[in-house]
């Protein structure tokens, strides 16, 4: 088609679209240059994923409740461990021999987080690295969701779960645990000036936030008999608290202390000790060789001072009376006097001078932090964008191929073809996307683990593709069925078989008619691709949303998510306009400018929907 023809058929439309496109692109470019050209003065002070250092030490909370029967009741910590030298390093029961695959999260600094270089770190993960050094295997961290972490460990998707996991009896039914390497306090965080001043003031009718599946949730439900508001991660809870959509947040103390910054409109009002549970690494229940080996390694890093060094650097807090890390035979670690350091810090720590910021300033800080845009954009561009495109593209191919098969089966005269297609379509269209992703990723993951090397990426593509196929199949089916019966009849009258007729005559026409609907489907697929983060991705596999979310988790600021959103718009807006263009062309019909035959008396008849 020549350019003249093209412009003839959509002059006004093109001009219009070009204008809109130009405007959006200009806006994005301006935004990016602006963000990138900005000097990076204070990136470090928003980075919560760096060791706070021993100077930030805190003393034992004074308002500890109900801790008395804690360590004494402990029946799980092993009396001793096998010497490190006797561990059979070849029989650790690892998914991939020589590699310790670790499921972790990025949202709970300083215990577990992802640093500005995109590496998973934090106290728990650094300690695990030190333990693994003693045992031999390389450590491979994979980000996941807390709600699915223990199930993924039990299903041997991960060798180890590392996420400040408190070892409750309920969790011991799903997974096994190592000896403790940390302990937990709960903190009660409330908006500044709240009438809630302690755990005893919590009551029914208040909106109390927790992260789903955590011990805090269990504490609120089982011990306090309250009904908490559940969130997927710590940042979302805290953002809701700051905007006063929550009355209180019950958080692990490490997270609370790492997250609540001076000047925030929130305060930690009380702490409580995490009853008789300690914090440990989760391992599949039956994998005793690995549990024993990690216990040996843990005692070894306690003995050589590594535990004390990392603890002092990342999470310096006075140990609760009677508790210490490792087996009962492990040496007591030598730690600085945190209480004294904390006492010395006390005046400086009280942020008396910083007045609470106005709501508008809060919003501006949360959404429009240019330094974070600058920080986010290179990662979004180099890691997020390619991954999002790969996920969407591969899933689209699966969706198109399988969708076409479903469509053809769905209009077949054979019942044994029609029924399975119908059932498939009903099931996959009827399920929420997240459920499909989790079922395929976690349900089929172990079954095909050998094929995919336990990489969730192909599973995510498969799940997205299978879901897309159900929708694409229905789109194709409606398109094919909209083709006049006379087309099939004419083709069959020429001597073509049914399948040849479908392939050569009916399907090509049907597909053309549904191109707009198809592009819309690709747009929703593009957006749905963000859901693969539920399956746990290593840093280089993160797509746009996850990149934004990690930086959001690391800083507690929403700007990286807004930046990720801009990337989505950059992809979806042109696609939306492509839909309009196709739609327009289909509605008006292709206007082929054939040289009209001056001798032909008949005026060309124009059929509306013909392409």
């Amino acid at each position, binding site marked *: 088609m020549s350019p003249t023809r093209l412009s003839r058929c959509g002059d006004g439309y093109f001009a219009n679209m070009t204008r809109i496109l130009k405007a959006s692109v200009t806006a994005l470019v301006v935004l990016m240059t602006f963000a990138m050209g900005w000097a990076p003065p204070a990136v470090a002070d928003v980075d919560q994923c760096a060791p706070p250092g021993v100077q930030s030490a805190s003393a034992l909370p004074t308002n500890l409740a109900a801790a008395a029967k804690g360590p004494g009741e402990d029946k799980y910590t092993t009396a001793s461990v096998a010497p490190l030298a006797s561990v059979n390093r070849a029989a650790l029961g690892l998914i991939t021999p020589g590699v310790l695959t670790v499921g972790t999260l990025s949202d709970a600094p300083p215990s577990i987080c992802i640093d500005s270089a995109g590496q998973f770190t934090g106290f728990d993960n650094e300690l695990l690295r030190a333990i693994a050094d003693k045992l031999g295997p390389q450590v491979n961290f994979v980000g996941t969701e807390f709600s699915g972490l223990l199930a993924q460990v039990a299903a041997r998707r991960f060798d180890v779960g590392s996420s400040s996991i408190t070892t409750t009896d309920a969790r011991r039914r799903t997974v096994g645990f190592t000896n403790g390497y940390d302990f937990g306090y709960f903190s009660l965080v409330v908006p500044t000036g709240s009438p809630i001043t302690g755990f005893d003031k919590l009551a029914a009718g208040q909106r109390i936030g927790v992260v789903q599946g955590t011990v805090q949730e269990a504490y609120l439900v089982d011990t306090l008999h309250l009904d908490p508001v559940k969130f997927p991660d710590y940042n979302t809870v805290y953002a809701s608290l700051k905007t006063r959509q929550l009355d209180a947040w019950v958080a692990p103390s490490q997270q609370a202390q790492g997250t609540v910054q001076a000047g925030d409109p929130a305060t930690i009002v009380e702490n409580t000790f995490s009853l008789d549970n300690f914090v440990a690494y989760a391992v599949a229940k039956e994998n005793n060789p690995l549990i024993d080996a990690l216990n040996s390694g843990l005692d070894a890093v306690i003995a050589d001072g590594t535990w004390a060094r990392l603890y002092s650097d990342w999470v310096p807090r006075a140990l609760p009376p009677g508790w210490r890390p490792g087996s009962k035979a492990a040496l007591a670690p030598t730690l600085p006097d945190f209480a004294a350091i904390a006492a010395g810090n006390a005046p400086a720590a009280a942020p008396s001078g910083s007045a609470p910021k106005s709501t508008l300033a809060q919003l501006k800080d949360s959404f429009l932090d240019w330094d974070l845009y600058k920080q986010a954009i290179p990662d979004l561009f180099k890691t997020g964008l390619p991954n999002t495109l790969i996920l969407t593209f591969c899933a689209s191919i699966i969706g198109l191929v399988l969708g076409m098969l479903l469509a053809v089966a769905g209009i077949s005269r054979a019942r044994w073809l029609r029924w399975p297609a119908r059932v498939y379509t009903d099931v996959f269209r009827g399920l929420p996307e997240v459920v499909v992703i989790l079922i395929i990723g976690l349900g089929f993951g172990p079954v095909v683990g050998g094929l995919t090397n336990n990489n969730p990426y192909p599973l995510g593509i498969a799940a997205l593709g299978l879901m897309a196929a159900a929708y694409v199949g229905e789109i194709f089916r409606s398109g094919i069925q909209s083709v*006049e019966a*006379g*087309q099939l*009849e*004419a*083709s*069959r*009258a*020429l*001597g*073509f*078989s049914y399948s*040849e007729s479908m392939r*050569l*005559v009916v399907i*090509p*026409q049907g597909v*053309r008619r549904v191109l707009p609907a198809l592009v819309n489907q690709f747009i929703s697929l593009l957006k749905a691709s963000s859901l693969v983060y539920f399956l746990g991705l290593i840093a280089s596999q993160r797509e746009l949303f996850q990149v934004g979310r990690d930086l959001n988790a690391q800083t507690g600021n929403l700007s990286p998510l807004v930046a990720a959103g801009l990337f989505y718009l950059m992809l979806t807006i042109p696609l939306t306009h492509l839909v309009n263009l196709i739609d327009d062309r289909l509605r008006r*019909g*292709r206007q*082929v400018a*054939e040289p009209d*035959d001056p001798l*032909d008396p*008949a*005026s*060309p*008849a*124009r*059929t509306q929907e*013909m*392409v």
Partner: protein
Amino acid sequence: MSTPSPEPVSLAANDVHLSFGSNTVLRGVDLDVPAGTTAAVIGPSGSGKSTLLRTLNRLHEPDRGDILLDGRSVLKDDPDALRQRIGMVFQHFNLFPHRTVLDNVTLAPRKLKRLGGDEARELGLAQLDRVGLRHKADARPATLSGGQQQRVAIARALAMAPQLMFFDEATSALDPELVKGILALIAELKSDGLTLVVVTHEMGFARSTADTVAFMDRGQVVESGPPQKVFEAAETERLQRFLSQVL
């Protein structure tokens, strides 16, 4: 100007029955079309004329009865192979709108007779020549007039070198001034020696061109014979009533 056609064949239908569920459409149709002759099928709407054509080329499988080409039953043949021998032209043309005029004509020879690109193109252009539309070879069907589209449809059917041609109300969807041209083209095919079955409402055409006229009503051939006899000496009351309404 015609390409060498294969030997025409005779067509016979014996007691052909067809129902769709509880709806009986054909109730024992008999028809005899000798090789190289033209049969016109007339009758009121809903009498089963179009269905008869689609049953004769087995787009619908008859429930009972037999269909014979040159005296041999074709009901056991491969239906796709049978349809390659029978060209069909429809009331609404049914050209393939996503393909050019030339592609419409050459699609079946290329795919079914495995003709090469150049050979198919030559054949296609020759057929378009035959209907006077060579200059529209690269146009899309949607840009043609109804009469031109029907000519392309005829060229498309002819490209498979059929031994038999069916016309299903081929002029009913055309503007009046275009009807004549198509009828003239059909008459030309007859003079080329093809066997034709023409379902039509054009009584003048049936009278002037057909060798046999068959009058159908309620799923049966009620009366048939040479045009003079059918049009001027109708025996049955139903045919007389029909003719009094259309003439």
